[in-house]
């Protein structure tokens, strides 16, 4: 027997079937939680946002329209709004200076991507993702971190596939620049570190 679709589970859930609600939650909560976590960088915020998304599903029973997209896209849409509200409140959303889609890419001097095989390199990349402007961060989280295809990401973000693609290229270019800046500043920072504390 084929598993129930999200739409079927949602209808049953709205008619008071707790098991259907739990099934839908278990099926979709992981993606929502990780999206919120990657976007906010905070586990507590991701937890709150995940809970709020499904509470909204309970409260606003008329909110979902199957003609406008899938249940998953609807949930991501709610999550996105909540993440943006969280970022506005917490002011953690410090974007990169370069926010112009048409700005030229930096020319690589030393290759910062070699570091990506190491733990520090990945940590730098994680910081760089968190520092991306929101619209770029969203596509990176969905398409690269979550490996969602462009079409599904476009539905989730309510924008055309072409926009997802162009933002993704720009986001990756910005990440490269950020990693390069980090790498270039690292020797200076290392030189300032005392080898031993004398006090």
């Amino acid at each position, binding site marked *: 027997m084929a598993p129930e679709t999200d739409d079927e589970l949602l209808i049953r859930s709205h008619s*008071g079937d*707790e098991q259907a*609600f*739990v099934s839908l*939650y*278990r099926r979709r*909560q*992981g993606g*929502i*939680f*990780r999206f919120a*976590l*990657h976007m906010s960088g905070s586990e507590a915020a*991701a*937890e709150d946002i*995940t*809970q709020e998304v*499904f*509470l909204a599903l*309970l*409260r606003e029973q008329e909110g979902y329209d199957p003609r406008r997209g899938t249940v998953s896209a609807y949930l991501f849409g709610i999550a996105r709004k909540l993440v943006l509200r969280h970022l506005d409140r917490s002011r953690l959303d410090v974007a990169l200076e370069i926010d112009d889609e048409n700005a030229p*890419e930096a020319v*690589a001097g030393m290759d910062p*991507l070699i570091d*990506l095989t190491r733990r520090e*390199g*990945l940590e730098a*990349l*994680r910081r760089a*993702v968190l520092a991306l402007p929101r619209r770029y961060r969203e596509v*990176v989280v969905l398409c*690269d*971190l*979550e*490996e969602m295809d462009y079409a599904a990401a476009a539905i989730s973000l309510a924008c055309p596939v*072409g926009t997802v*693609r*162009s933002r993704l*290229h720009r986001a*990756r*270019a910005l*990440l*490269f620049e950020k*990693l390069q800046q980090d790498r270039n500043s690292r020797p200076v920072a290392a030189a300032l570190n005392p080898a031993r504390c004398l006090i």
Partner: protein
Amino acid sequence: MTCAEFWNRAPDGSDHLAECAECAIRFERQDRVSAGLRLLGAPMRGREAPARVEESLVACFRSHERRRESRRPKELWWAAWAWAAALAVTVALAVLLSQIHQPGWSERLTRQSAQVAGEPAPGFETGDMDNGGGFIPLPNAERIAPNEPMNLVRLEVPRSTMIALGFEVRADRAEEAVEADVLLGADGVARAVRFLN
């Protein structure tokens, strides 16, 4: 293919990369950033919200359902009352109209007028019936006994009722209520009706 055209489409290693060194470098760089991102996302892929979120949501679901259940009986009562009222009105109208539509009712009007000679109802003059008085006899008026006491009841009926008695009623006003005096015999059956406005 120009560089712009290449980047506006899905850049998946087409011939343009062989022709344009700059795009080839840029593409290779993006590919490696993407690989790094996938590497970064891999350990997170199994991450889920803590179990307490589900527990809390299930509690909210139950509370939400309880509230909905508690609202239901009230809603049902309202619906039951509305249906009962609608049914009562429909039955009353059906009775009234069925009496009007009995065959030969119009030729009995004059006979009925003569028979109405009992005690008049308060506020009702027997003459009202004899000389018309605005009353329109209903088909069962022939059953009035010579000295039968009669009652006059004033009530509101839908204006559409007047159509069956030969009045012209505009469709947009058919739902309006109109006051009427109904003449009841001792058996409680309506004998005649008079519309007041």
